């Protein structure tokens, strides 16, 4: 196992982890406010297809990314509308978004399935990328990865240190109390949902524009669902989301690793492909062990509708 191989693995791990991290952080914010949006898979899909089409049409990657974010925000608007003022069941609505989003994306994207867009070159951070092994692994990524890191940092900082983060946590714990104190609970929840949608759209855009610059129907391949599991795995703590995303990134590229290491394992290709999903299950089982931690960190009002005028 050469260090070069390790470096390459680290690189691939970061790349695979990035979309998971973005989507999971967005969902974390949404859930911290008490809203359970299971539609991440659909949000990623529409984000991916929109970004791809936009990039293909305008030739600009930036426009593509913005299109992806917008698509995620718009689709999550539907979720917010149905679950907040109309107070429909959040689980069912989220599922609907997931199914609808994937279907819609497949539909819109059909004509573009054989289109190609240019691959974005990596941007080597001057100086830092010269470091042997680590330099290539950490600092020679496409710009979007750095953007994702920046976004992650901002989200973590806002949640931990700012008033906005505090209000978000409070509203998620007890919307009734938040309302009694005078906070616009429903507006906060809606904004959290839209933020989550935007992040998911961004994650999807990453897949179709940067990761593999193309579009196919099954592009998202369950990553949205894995991101949801990540939030639970991390017991709603942002740093753990980052950690978990990278662990999963590692599992996702397991196949590559096995092949390139030259190990002659008689493992069917399907089993390796199944690893991320099996790993998700294992992880879910492991974290379910400690109810106290879960109670302390999970937003107490998760998934419950808020009725402002209940008497």
């Amino acid at each position, binding site marked *: 196992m050469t260090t070069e191989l390790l470096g390459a693995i680290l690189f691939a791990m970061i790349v695979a982890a990035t979309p998971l991290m973005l989507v999971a952080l967005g969902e974390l914010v949404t859930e911290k406010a008490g809203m359970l949006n299971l539609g991440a898979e659909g949000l990623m899909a529409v984000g991916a297809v929109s970004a791809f089409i936009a990039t293909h049409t305008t030739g600009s990657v930036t426009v593509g990314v913005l299109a992806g974010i917008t698509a995620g925000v718009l689709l999550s608007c539907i979720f917010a509308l149905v679950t907040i003022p109309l107070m429909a069941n959040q689980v069912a609505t989220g599922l609907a978004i997931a199914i609808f989003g994937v279907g819609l994306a497949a539909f819109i994207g059909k004509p573009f399935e054989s289109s190609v867009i240019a691959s974005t070159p990596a941007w080597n951070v001057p100086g830092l990328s010269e470091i042997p092994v680590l330099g290539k692994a950490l600092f020679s990524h496409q710009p979007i990865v750095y953007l994702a890191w920046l976004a992650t940092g901002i989200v973590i900082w806002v949640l931990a240190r700012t008033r906005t983060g505090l209000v978000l*946590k409070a509203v998620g714990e007890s919307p009734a*109390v938040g309302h009694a104190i005078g906070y616009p609970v429903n507006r906060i929840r809606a904004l959290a949902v839209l933020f989550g949608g935007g992040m998911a759209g961004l994650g999807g855009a990453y897949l179709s524009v940067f990761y593999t610059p193309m579009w196919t129907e099954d592009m998202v391949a369950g990553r949205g669902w894995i991101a949801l599991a990540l939030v639970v795995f991390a017991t709603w703590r942002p740093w753990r989301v980052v950690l978990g995303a990278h662990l999963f990134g590692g599992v996702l590229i397991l196949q590559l690793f096995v092949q390139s290491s030259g190990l002659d394992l008689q493992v069917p290709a399907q089993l390796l492909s199944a690893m991320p999903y099996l790993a998700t299950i294992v992880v879910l089982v492991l974290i379910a062990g400690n109810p*106290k931690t879960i109670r*302390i960190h999970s937003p107490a009002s998760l998934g419950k509708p808020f009725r402002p005028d209940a008497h």
Partner: protein
Amino acid sequence: MKPPVPRLQLQGLTKAYPTLVANDQISLTVEAGEIHAILGENGAGKSTLMKMIYGVTQPTAGQMFWEGTPVSIGSPAIARSLGIGMVFQHFSLFESLTVAENTSLSLGSSHTPSSAAQALQQAAARYGLEVHPEKFIHDLSVGERQRVEILRCLLQDPKLLILDEPTSVLPPQAIEGLFAMLRRLASEGCSILYISHKLQEIQQLCDRATILRAGKVVAECRPQEETAASLAALMIGRDTEPLPKRPPAASAKTIFAAEGLTLLSPDPYGTHLDNISFTVPQGTILGIAGVSGNGQRELLWALSGETRCPSPEMLQLHHEPIGHRGPAARRRLGMSVVPEDRLGTGAIPAMSLEENGLLTAVYTQPMVRHGLVDQKATHAFAQKCIAQFDVRCSGAQALAGALSGGNLQKFIVGRELLQTPQLLVCSQPTWGVDVGAAALLRRAIQSLAEQGSAVILISEDLDEILEVSDEVAVLFEGKLSPPMPASEASPERVGLLMAGVWQQQTHTGASTTSTSHRAGDGTRAASS
């Protein structure tokens, strides 16, 4: 110098919901520096009125005047900017945040948790209270939480402070401290709106009182010039009938016993039960008093079987260990349970009364044949319950959610009583229930005991416990005091136990000065 204009004036204030009118043409005035009581039974409309003053809801008609100018209070933020502060009955605190964080949230965006912490310390010093800003709310006791709640309001230099049933969560000893603080505030010019149904406290503390009944103002008075009985009459609208005295229980056969009951709470924020022991003989009502949050829920779950005991012998019904059995098995053995939470646990709002009857009666009544529900049987049972317990509803098919609190509680208690259990466990059976229904329920519980069953009554309403029970014990931090006969259970003694001061089971000295009034014939008006 008091300004001639009253601090707060309400004129014809009304709040109408689609199904009921909570407040109907309420008019009252509060002067500066006055302690004004809002008196009324549960359901009289006090909380709704306060919510309107604090801006949580808006009136459907009427006017509010603040220091002479008409105002429309659209949100709590506006209320705060006027100088109105509110201490809620069920505190508006976020459990997973610290004291400082909670305070900064309610103070407004200019305050960070650290500046809030500083302000808290200063205010605490000024009023002689203790506070730890960095502690999490879920680590605080109920009394401490109330202190945080009050301090938070005081930080904003309120001109009007609203307190909603503040003593319902305090042991009797802490109440004096609260009153002292309120009197000092009033002397500094702050007006106080004190909402309560406890006549004795109002007589002690308040300058004037407005009495609400069924959403309307029925009287205004000076509490110190009235007697407890006259206040009660105004509040209820008729003279209260004392419960008839019961003959002492005939035999001493033990129906139920708890031995060393020790149980961890399933809720990480909850209270663990610690070595609880008691016996309940035939025909006895054991009242378990205590301030809310000392393990009542956990005790109920342990008794009902929703949490299982680590060892089966911890609970024994007819000397049979049942600690390991679930609710279904316990019901079949002759136990019935009335839970604290009627809509959501005791009954399902979206299901009919028939189906809600099936919910627990299925274990003792023949209601299922070949796996299918016998609708005739469930219908008959529900009808019987409705008739016997005076449940006002549109029929056995009525949805549980459509009934008023009192009627639903009558149905639930009736459902359990109709199964003639050997042991009835009930928790807060008359909470939020109108006076008529409460009296009916208490009498029904007593007659069950007269027929020989054992009853365990868990209640945070000390008056109810003292009125109904044969024996009294107190739950404090998950521990139970040794039960004492009701004749020895004076409010002072129970109050000390509720505050955690364990005493020997010997005759105590004479009761301390203040709070207990005994009318000549042994009846008592509602007091604490």
